[in-house]
């Protein structure tokens, strides 16, 4: 057996394509995971205790993006962001902001964020629903006692809602982080940009190395790194969830 493994790991550090993919993944983590989680916490804490009609219908709608193939999502947004005859640019021209029109997926400065926003669209509804369900399980008395003690809405959020929602937050963060690093992003990017303009995530880079450039060994190295990152993140999140 020939140990070229070390060489592969050393190559990784000098491979600018890998680091580009790494940065793309960091942007995706922000937009697929952090933004939807924060948005979900914000919206759910406003809504959960209000008496609103049609909650079931909203739940159904908020979950719809989850059942669509990533490739289909990427294809639809490919048109939405298209430079000519695209939806975003058309809306901009309607409201007189032609100067802001761009090839959203066609430049390295906007493309990664544009792809990231697809993830925000995809996951925010999911986060809102999980957090609403979590908040509705919290004992109502905790809030009334806090109110008697003169705690304002913000204090109630940080002292009751947030700690009580810990389990839900951990579940949501793990799920969205894994999606931001693997399968979900792979299909969306492949359909929307093919990986051009700094949008290629690590998983797509590994796929292209292995099955298009036939560099199986180096591709495997990258997959190992990716798997280690995913397992480490899941492990840390679970530990945080267990504590206390």
């Amino acid at each position, binding site marked *: 057996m020939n140990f070229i493994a070390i060489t592969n790991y050393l190559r990784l550090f000098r491979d600018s394509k890998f680091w580009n993919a790494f940065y793309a993944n960091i942007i995706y983590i922000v937009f697929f995971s952090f933004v939807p989680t924060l948005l979900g916490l914000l919206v759910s804490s406003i809504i959960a205790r209000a008496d609103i009609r049609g909650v079931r219908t909203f739940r159904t709608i*908020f979950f719809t993006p989850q059942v669509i193939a990533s490739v289909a999502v990427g294809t639809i947004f490919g048109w939405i962001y298209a430079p000519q005859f695209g939806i975003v640019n058309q809306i901009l021209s309607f409201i007189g902001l032609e100067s802001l029109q761009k090839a959203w997926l066609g430049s390295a400065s906007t493309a990664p964020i544009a792809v990231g926003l697809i993830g925000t669209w995809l996951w925010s509804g999911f986060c809102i629903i999980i957090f609403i369900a979590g908040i509705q399980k919290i004992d109502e008395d905790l809030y009334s006692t806090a109110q008697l003690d003169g705690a304002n809405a913000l204090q109630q959020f940080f002292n009751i809602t947030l700690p009580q929602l810990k389990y839900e937050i951990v579940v949501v963060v793990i799920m969205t982080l894994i999606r931001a690093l693997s399968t979900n992003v792979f299909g969306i990017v492949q359909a929307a940009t093919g990986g051009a303009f700094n949008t290629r995530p690590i998983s797509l880079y590994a796929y292209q190395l292995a099955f298009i450039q036939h560099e199986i060994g180096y591709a495997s190295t990258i997959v190992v790194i990716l798997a280690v990152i995913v397992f480490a993140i899941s492990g840390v999140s679970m530990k945080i969830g267990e504590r206390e």
Partner: protein
Amino acid sequence: MSKGKAKIINTMLFIFLLILASVILMPFLIMLLGSVREHIDIIIRGPLALPKIWHFENYYIVLSRYRFGIYFRNTFYITAPTVIVSLVFALMAAYSFVFLDLPFRKPIVLISTILGVMIASEFIMIPLYRLMNVFGILDTYPAAILPQLAMSAAFSALILRSFFLGLPRDFIDAALVDGATNWRILWSILAPIARPAIITSAALTTVWTWNSYILPLVMLPDPMKVPLAVGLLLFRGTYTINIPLTMTGTVVTALPMLIFYLLFQQHIIKGLTRGAVD
């Protein structure tokens, strides 16, 4: 807070939710309306105009002339066996996890379920590709079905296990005293009771397998064998220029699961959230 004020706040929150819901539904509407237009019409009247003439023949074109009919059939060939066989295995696995005195039960349960659920297709695509190559089944449906089946069975086994754990133990003991074999207890007593858990598992496996594409992409190099998700990618690679036909292909890929979701939404939401939402 007065009653009138609460009502105003609730109405405002309702409108706010309505806006959020429209943002989420908008891309689907764009897809559906785009799929029945003509490319030249999009260029002349803009992408947001409503279709003047509804070009439903786009669906005929995409299904017959552009292979989406074949992709549809292939998707079915991959999804149906995956769902059925993975459930059979998951039921047997969950039964043995809960009711049999297995040696090393804990590590077995952990490895065969949690690990199976956590491993994404791309972590194992390279070794799987080589494995299927060794088996000599590369470019055949089983190469795409078997790994998908294994991952689905792991997930379903988790759901069924927690369902079985919730059953009263005496129930099984009574059956055992009766002299029923494990096989009979599983298939004639437990399987009918486990119906809700089985439907949840089946619904999720259907959605996942229908939408899966990394495995078919890697395992099925023959463009005549690929499912819809991969087919859509191939179609976009070849004919990106025509927006309506691209959207029609997207509808053919996405609509079956949208309808399926509407039919089984309770189960799908429950499964996707691991029971966090009931």
